[in-house]
């Protein structure tokens, strides 16, 4: 069963003008958010995006932007109460963090 998270929240943006067609964003996306036709990448399913940031990092032409980060509740609660940035391991008692 395909699970989908909230609609219209992902911060993923793709500037198709800048795309050079290397297709690395398609290779790294684990959620089939992007596809490739007419020599360029296109966003086809934004609600599947998990903001992992893989496509942005593997884009050589800066065509993709997304605000990536940990979607971990413990880290977010920690950052909400302390004002610090949410990172893995924040708010947990082990240095290794949760995953």
């Amino acid at each position, binding site marked *: 069963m395909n699970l989908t998270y*909230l609609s219209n929240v992902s911060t993923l943006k793709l500037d198709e003008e800048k795309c050079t067609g290397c297709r690395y964003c398609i290779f790294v*996306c*684990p959620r089939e958010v992007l596809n490739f036709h007419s020599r360029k990448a296109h966003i086809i399913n934004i609600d599947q995006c998990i*903001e992992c940031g893989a496509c942005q990092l*593997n884009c050589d032409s800066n065509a993709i932007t997304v605000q*990536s980060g940990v979607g971990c509740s413990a*880290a977010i609660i920690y950052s909400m109460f302390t004002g610090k940035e949410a990172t893995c391991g924040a708010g947990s008692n082990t240095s290794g963090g949760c995953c």
Partner: protein
Amino acid sequence: MLMEIKQGDGFTLLRPRTNILKKKPTSVDSNWNFKDYFGAFLVRVSSYRNNYTTPTGLFKIGKPDKTSQVVVSANYKLSFDILRKSLAGLDLWILVLDTKGVNVWCAAGKGTFGTRELIKKIQESNLELFVEHKHLILPQLAGPGVNAHEVKKVTGFKVFYGPVAARDIPDYLKAKKVATPQMRKIEFSTWNRLVLTPMEFIPLFKYLIYYIIFIAFLFGLKTEGIIFKDITLYGYPYILSGFMALVSGSILTPVLLPIIPSRYFFIKGWIMGFIVQISLLINFLNKNEEIYFYSGISENLPFLILSLILFPLFSSFAALQFTGSTTFTNMTGVYKEHKYAIPLYKSGAAISFILIVLHKLLLWR
């Protein structure tokens, strides 16, 4: 020139840079022994997983030669074990990065399975002396940490993102390093979710113990001292409901995730917690003569109201913790959930505290 490479499990390897082929990369077996199976179990149920590492560097599986492919992995022992098991019968090189014992996906997110570490390991292992090609196969889920273009520029090695799951590597290699769309997707089956639930339940259970001690003390307290009979009589529904709310939020909600209405985790957890609490209340009311309601329903009214406020919210909170363990949530969405949920938890906790004290006062005599 001697180069010292610290290995993950404590042994040190002295490697002369000029005569590298003297020191051969270690061979690994694709079979699991009892220790591997036992470790794979322990990491699912305890903090044992925080220190479950393998040595790093270049390894051999089968009899690889200069034309054999190179697969890259993390030094979380469970990841490495699953990889070597999946590669049975193949001749390959395995390059293990130092991800501090963290799995590929999480290490990529933190940047430890990253461009820099990959470049460092390619150079330290003198990979170019073992293979004549310039291809590396990375787990697809390393994507958030590795910039493939950068790796190519610095080392000359071209990164091929392989399948998400190690078990697809043999088919991926047969298809000449082309992954099918099915290989590129992350799964999140009922089984995948179930194995994660112990580590959702156990950390929160530690907090539940404080709650149980508080309830036992409060409802056991009489002018005569702490009365054990009163704990079992009045504290019992609080303790059982609290425990079941945790089961609801950290086990039932993750397992039943696709069939519970709403896309918001905090609502899913609340719905599940509400259903569980209603069934508990029906159970308590059915036993009214002998156990709980023998002292009259009006005296226990605060519990009836509170149980429908506090415990579904507790279940909701536990379910919200699961957002970080899933494969389909995103950060912006999780922030949005907290913006709605945190004020609810705060006011729910305040109202519940007042009702608990009120309940105690009604019972005081």
